[in-house]
């Protein structure tokens, strides 16, 4: 879907749906309705604002009759690159607790650098190792930030 108009239509519909979900969720908020500003008032207001914005965008794109600009979505290779990088990032986040921040950092940086430039294997390993060491000595030891240490903390 490269047409701006169609994308706006889809985005508008999705946002309107989000607004409807928020209104529904707001109706279930418990709290004292006798308060000057009951707890569900603002969620309702923002829900209606979201719904109205989404519907407005959808209607505007339906009624639009001018030149339709094209959205530059990535080609297949681009989607694959984004997907792999997001996967690496999700793995990094998920492994931060069990492996500890320094080791997970080293693995993520080495893996991501290697994936983005396959000819740089040594560079990737060095960047990974250096990042892990910096995280450990600067952020954990020097600045005493409480990052998970994993096996290094045992």
């Amino acid at each position, binding site marked *: 879907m490269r047409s701006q108009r169609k994308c706006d239509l889809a985005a508008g519909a999705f946002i309107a749906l989000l607004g409807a979900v928020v209104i529904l969720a707001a109706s279930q*908020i418990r709290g004292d309705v006798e308060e000057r500003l009951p707890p569900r008032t603002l*969620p309702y207001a923002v829900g209606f*604002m979201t719904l109205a914005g989404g519907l407005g965008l959808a209607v505007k794109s339906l009624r639009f009759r001018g030149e339709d600009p094209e959205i530059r979505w990535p080609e297949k290779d681009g989607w694959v*690159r984004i997907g792999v*990088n997001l996967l690496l990032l999700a793995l990094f986040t998920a492994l931060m607790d069990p492996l500890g921040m320094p080791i997970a950092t080293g693995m993520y940086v080495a893996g991501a650098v290697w994936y983005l*430039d396959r000819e740089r294997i040594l*560079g990737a390993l060095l960047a990974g190792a250096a990042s892990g060491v910096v995280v450990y000595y600067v952020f954990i030891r020097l*600045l005493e930030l409480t990052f998970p240490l994993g096996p290094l903390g045992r």
Partner: protein
Amino acid sequence: MLFSWDLLLTGFADALTWTNLLWAMVGCLVGTLIGVLPGIGPSAGIAILLPMTTMIPPTSGIIMMAAIYYGAMYGGSTTAIVVNIPGEASSVPTAIDGYEMAKQGRAGAALGISAISSFVAGTLGLVGLTFFAPLLANVALAFGPPEYFALMFMGLSLVISLSGRALLKGMIATSIGLLSSLIGQNPLTGAIRLTFGIVDLMAGLNFISIIIGLFAVSEVMINVERAATHIYGTKIRGWMPTWAEIRQCGPTMVRSSGIGFFLGLLPGCAPAVTTFIAYDVEKRVSKTPERFGKGAIEGVAAPEGANNATSSAGFVPLFAFGLPTGPALAVLMGGLMMYGLQPGPMLFQTNPKFVWAVIASMYIGNVILLVLNLPLVGFWARIALIPFPILGPLIILCSVIGAYSIRFMLFDVWVALLFGGIGYLMRKLHFPIAPLVLATVLAQMLETSLQQSLLISQGSWLIFFNRPIAGFFMALALASIGRGIWLQVRSHAPEIAIDDADG
């Protein structure tokens, strides 16, 4: 608190001792590093270093802490300009034009004007602090919850101009920002909202994670998509702004100093708010507003100036009433109390020598910051020369550290990732990102002041119109909204955020 030339000159004599100069320099350097490094903002930085300052004389210790505060305020803009990571909400407006300038090979010029504007505004702010503090301190007292609500509402109305031609999309971005901050507990009543039964959501979404995701993570995704070899395609052109550009930014620096200083007097009116207002004002007064969002140098000078002027202004209520206007100043106040000094009306009577030495050292600190940072501009700008396959993962690493270290919750990292995806889609679909950030930053204060105001007025909304200051801000906000709607109704163009740098 009365001004006296004698006391000020004695303050300069104290601050200009070699020991105090040395500690001011160390503070500026450490502060800039704190600002540049992800994960530790000014408040955390001062808190970490507070115990260390006990090893040096009290005046030197406080001078060093104030220098750290200034340095950190300045350092935060570096990553926003060079790699599009605004570590603080106040750096977001800087990133809009600063990063665009960097992409055009002008990171050095953006960093240079940021340093110069910070210096000018910081110094002008100090002049205000030195000469008019007693008078200005009363301004803060004239502000109650209705005035705060009206001010925040006016701040929120800036989304109209930040949205460019895409008003509907700007409105949607604003509602998503407001929604994000409504999730979790109500700050006053504790009522749980929009958590959908997810326990992690009860603590709410932290706006720094949202900003990091929207800017840094989505920026990396855009570069990964196009298999970039370098973060910018263009070569670096010049390390410094030209004289013509500095002159062009002169009025901008003065205006943003005024905005940053006067709004900075108000407790809770953080640099995050004043920088957006200064950016918006500059865009409105510019004869070529279409350049904003595309690398306008005034778009960097304005928020940076406002940021530093706000930092200076924060010392007025701190010294005059013992009222910290933000978390970093609250930590600094803790530092003062650690030395047995109680900020407040009596501070100037009981410890005049100390207070004026600190004020004098701030002038010197501003000069040191400029002298230290201008030569470093080339160093920071060269970060862009690192090949993207190495720089990209490092940007992500900084983002993860930045998001995690706010509350030390893994959940915040996932939030940053989620908003990275949202930011990517927003850029592709031409939704402006700045309104979302502004709404997220303002929402909590807006809600709290609204609740307090309605309690005061026993439910009457007229309280926002029948008090002069509140009425003035409300009128400005409503006029801005009305104008935006009128322009939107007249426009028949497709919804494209023409002037968003994010697109």
